[in-house]
């Protein structure tokens, strides 16, 4: 049996104190196997991105237990974790420095981690994400949205991580470009044996890219199921079924009961 790459147990996170405390994650637990692609879906505010941010070390005051490759995570972010876990953000327009060329953006992580052979690495990583060498000295404004997202993926991959955290990687892109990026992500995972944790609100994307999916609502995981079961009648939870129906089409009859929304 494949070992677990990511294990999260009873993860809790609260913002604020006393009566104003906002409990944003409530006992979130799941495990992702090595080489697996796992999806987190839910509405805005359901806490799905927050889980990623805890894993990436952007929030440090969580409680509970998180293990990567069997090793428990400290609250403080260390260098080793950065090399293991990298993140790709939603908005390729906002996540690249506007005044850094592609080369500068890709060199920086290597400079921080003291990695040599930088030129060769940049060349090969660009080829991997489907850009040629002529893109090396371009600025973000000289790239299209899809090309920027490729650069963002290259930047995440240049430290050769084993886990990619993907935060809505295609929701800012047109469907035609989205298809290219999704194909690229699928290829990269197969070639390098990466583990993906994907956050999205688009069930189509989850079904395409992931093996299993957890449905979140108000900081809790409602159910975890194989993405192949999404289409059938197996989603037990009413909220999951609503998400599936709503992603298919607009339908007049489909009034969403308040109990489902506010469960």
């Amino acid at each position, binding site marked *: 049996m494949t070992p677990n790459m990511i294990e999260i147990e009873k993860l809790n996170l609260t913002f604020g104190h006393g009566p104003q405390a906002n409990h944003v994650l409530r006992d979130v637990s799941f495990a992702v196997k090595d080489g697996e692609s796992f999806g987190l879906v839910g509405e805005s505010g359901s806490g799905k991105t927050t889980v990623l941010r805890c894993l990436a070390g952007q929030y440090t005051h969580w409680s509970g237990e998180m293990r990567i490759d069997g090793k428990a995570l400290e609250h403080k972010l260390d260098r080793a974790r950065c090399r293991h876990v990298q993140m790709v953000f939603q908005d390729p327009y906002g996540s690249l420095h506007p005044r850094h060329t592609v080369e500068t953006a890709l060199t920086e992580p290597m400079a921080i981690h003291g990695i040599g052979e930088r030129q060769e690495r940049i060349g090969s990583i660009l080829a991997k994400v489907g850009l040629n060498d002529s893109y090396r000295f371009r600025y973000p404004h000289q790239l299209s949205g899809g090309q920027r997202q490729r650069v963002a993926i290259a930047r995440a991959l240049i430290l050769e991580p084993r886990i990619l955290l993907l935060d809505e990687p295609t929701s800012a892109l*047109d469907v*035609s470009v*989205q*298809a290219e990026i999704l194909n690229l992500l699928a290829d990269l995972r197969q070639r390098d044996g990466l583990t993906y944790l994907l956050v999205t609100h*688009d069930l189509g994307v989850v*079904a395409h890219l992931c093996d299993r999916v957890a449905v979140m609502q108000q900081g809790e995981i409602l159910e975890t199921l194989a993405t192949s079961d999404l289409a059938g009648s197996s989603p037990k939870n009413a909220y999951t079924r*609503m998400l599936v129906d709503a992603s298919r089409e607009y339908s007049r009859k489909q009034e969403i009961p308040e109990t489902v929304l506010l469960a």
Partner: protein
Amino acid sequence: MSEIKLQVEDLRVQFLNDGRITDAVRNVSFNLGQEKLAIVGESGSGKSTVGRSLLRLHPASAKVTAKQMRFGEIDLLGIPEKAMQQIRGQRISMIMQDPKYSLNPVMRVGEQIAEAYLAHHKASKAEAAERVLDMLEKVRIRDPQRVYQLYPHEVSGGMGQRIMIAMMMIPEPEIIIADEPTSALDVSVRQQVLSVLDDLVGQRNLGLIFISHDLNLVRTFCDRVLVMYAGRVVESIAAADLDHAQHPYTRGLLAALPSIDHRRDRLPVLQRDPAWLTA
């Protein structure tokens, strides 16, 4: 089809930048009756520009020409700005994508809606407030009295969008242009907003132009679809027939959508044909 509300023939929009001319919209023609007409396409295809040019909301650097652009008996291209103000908002109104940026952040939502009403109708403030409460109820806001007093940052995205719809509906327009009205919303809220829009369009015999990039949504929500590519309408098709689309661009877009029901190892990537720019 019922009476034609809007007739557009050979609409062309050009932008002038540093002496360079960019053709944003080319030879777009369509009629709008009492129906839900979708305009779909990728970003940059000119779909929003079409919507804006109908209401003369384009920037000064744009040059709009058309053989014909008629709203009932009125020639939308020829009328002076003063007359346009009588139409804009009152007879044709527009719903924007994101309520966060489109509502005035320092004004109570009820007062904003009342302002829209008073701009086009002679009425007392009390009368306007009554109309607003009535309208808020129509867009299915449960506690209109309370919501009237809220500021935009105090309402959720879905409620904000329903407030926008209320604001656009209260002058009782004949045509509504909705520019990606639901793309900033979650799926569950999206259904609510759409059904509000759907009801109002049905009750008041409106014409709706629904600008979107979401083919799946348009397929079931609208009656007819115009597919735009690089400023041109490449295909006009009944929404129900979208599965039998003829144009390779439309088919490519549909095929590129990942789907829960129909899983594939690789998504077909759209191959763009230069001939689409001219054909």
